[in-house]
């Protein structure tokens, strides 16, 4: 690991240079909300952003992605795989989103490696940024263990006030600093400042989960038949927003489209959601997860149990996006806490006493 310092006045220059060689994506303001979008100059970039509506998964796993192209009238090559990569930098990724990307990486690598994801991923350089204060009233990253950056970063920025500390995590990352005259080596003062920023930061976040994250899978195992799921199911609108905005949701549907010739076309994948009616419906109309309560349970079990058990990584990174998007106030941290409250022996004792 090596540490470098980029004075803030050098940022604009740096971004301009990156743009000449890469597609640069980063947080920017759209109307009154931040989104990840193409950056054309440092002015577009809002590194000090509160959470975006969609996570950076929209770059790694586009909403609509062509998988194959075909022309059944052509006898030689009726099907061509379509793999699209473009050297891309994602700038300013929050640490929770970095954890989510680690999970996506694993999922698309394991079993049958997904060439489409992996090719794109290989060509993406991740520049993460240290979160110094909570980015949304709904986030609970500290509780989920995602407040520190995972090792998957290529370059990691920490805002030191007048400058950024740059930590390189890979060759891809150090390539971005190549021959940058504005970048200098850190002084003792810089190290002190970094330490100060980091220790202050930790204080400014709260633990919002009332128990330890490692207990979550077993808590859920005990809660399969909890009536909370029915209560949530009654409230849930089934709108799917929670899964669309979630950085660790990746389920997809596959659709074919043709032109008027009917023999030329493409097969694409598009984001799907386990909260939607048709998700688990098979031919004949049988729906294996027909109730909103079952679907919500499935969602929270994936977030809090299945992914953790299958991949050793958290399935919910605590970004709070789903809670922000949910119009009927279904929030993972509150759901988990409520389950904990209902499962803990003290509460049941209290209940026994009062009833």
């Amino acid at each position, binding site marked *: 690991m090596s540490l470098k310092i980029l004075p803030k006045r050098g940022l604009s220059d740096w971004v301009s240079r990156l743009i000449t060689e890469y597609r640069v994506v980063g947080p920017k303001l759209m109307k009154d909300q931040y989104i990840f979008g193409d950056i054309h100059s440092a002015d577009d970039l809002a590194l000090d952003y509160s959470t975006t509506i969609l996570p950076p998964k929209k770059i790694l796993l586009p909403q609509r992605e062509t998988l194959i192209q075909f022309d059944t009238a052509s006898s030689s090559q009726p099907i061509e795989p379509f793999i699209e990569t473009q050297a891309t930098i994602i700038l300013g990724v929050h640490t929770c989103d970095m954890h989510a990307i680690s999970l996506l990486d694993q999922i698309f690598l394991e079993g049958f490696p997904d060439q489409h994801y992996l090719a794109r991923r290989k060509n993406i350089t991740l520049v993460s940024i240290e979160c110094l204060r909570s980015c949304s009233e709904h986030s609970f990253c500290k509780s989920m263990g995602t407040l520190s950056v995972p090792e998957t970063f290529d370059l990691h920025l920490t805002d030191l006030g007048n400058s950024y500390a740059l930590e390189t995590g890979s060759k891809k990352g150090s390539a971005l600093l190549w021959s940058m005259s504005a970048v200098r080596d850190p002084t003792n003062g810089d190290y002190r400042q970094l330490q100060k920023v980091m220790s202050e930061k930790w204080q400014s976040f709260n633990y919002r989960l009332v128990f330890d994250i490692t207990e979550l899978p077993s808590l859920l195992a005990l809660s399969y038949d909890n009536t909370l799921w029915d209560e949530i199911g009654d409230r849930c609108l089934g709108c799917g927003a929670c899964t669309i905005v979630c950085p660790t949701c990746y389920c997809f549907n596959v659709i*074919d489209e043709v032109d008027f010739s009917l023999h030329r076309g493409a097969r694409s994948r598009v984001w799907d959601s386990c909260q939607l009616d048709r998700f*688990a419906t098979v031919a004949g109309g049988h729906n294996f997860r027909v109730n909103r309560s079952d679907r919500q349970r499935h969602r929270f079990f994936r977030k809090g149990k299945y992914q953790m058990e299958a991949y050793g990584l958290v399935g919910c990174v605590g970004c709070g996006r789903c809670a922000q998007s949910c119009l009927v106030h279904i929030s993972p941290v509150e759901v988990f806490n409520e389950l904990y409250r209902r499962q803990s022996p003290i509460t049941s004792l209290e209940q026994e006493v009062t009833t």
Partner: protein
Amino acid sequence: MSPLLQEILETSSIYKPTMMLVLDVRQVTQLEKLFTIEMPNGLSLGHKPGQFVEVSVLGIGEAPISISSSPSRSNGKFELCVRRAGSVTSALHSLNPGDSVGIRGPFGRGFPIDRFRGKDILFAPGGLGLAPLRSLINEVLDDRGNFGRVTILYGARNPSELLFTDELVEWETRTDVELHVTVDHPDNDWTGNVGVITTLFPKIRVHARNTIAITCGPPAMYRFVLVELLGKGLLEGNIWLSLERRMKCGVGKCGHCQMNHIYTCQDGPAFSYAEIKHVEEAL
């Protein structure tokens, strides 16, 4: 890893089907057709009974279909028995010999046939459930000496929906197979059993400790068949089921087929009851 799988991994996309020739199309019932598909370049599919392929009609979509022929009878070809149920399956039904279809696979975990050897085998398919089990039945029959008693209980809604009637006759006449067929709604010509599949169970004797039972059918059927099998004292690990879920990729990515933590496409579609007994969403 099968050569086909190898090829798929070496070509640049797990989602790219290989075009294969439709050799033969046979109308089996009003709703089902049996397709014989030829592998390119004399390759072999290298499948196990219980596995499935993703079948593409380019421009319409893809559907998971069980391989209905047994590996023992493959020889560069395989068979799919397809019910017309929606857009892809209807498009398949409009294909003729000489047309081609896209195939990916085989996918999924088939039945662990090695563990079945030396045991009595009880098949209990219902309706279209015979399509996937036929692969295993013929595999067993082609290696008949290595298995104990073979019993087949088959139920369909009415006589016209019975699949593979030629083979039923063949099995019927074999002395080393015990076959019982029943229909829910008989027609005038039907002289056999009437009633749901569970009405066949009293007709058979089962050596509980040494029997492997394999069942496949519509979602509602499993619960009743399981009660019978468990009631006869079969071990949970010896009862096998093949499950259906919505699938969009077949390779454990799209999330549709998930039952609790299990991916039907990769962890199944063949499961022992012991494996899924605690998977609440499975049955």
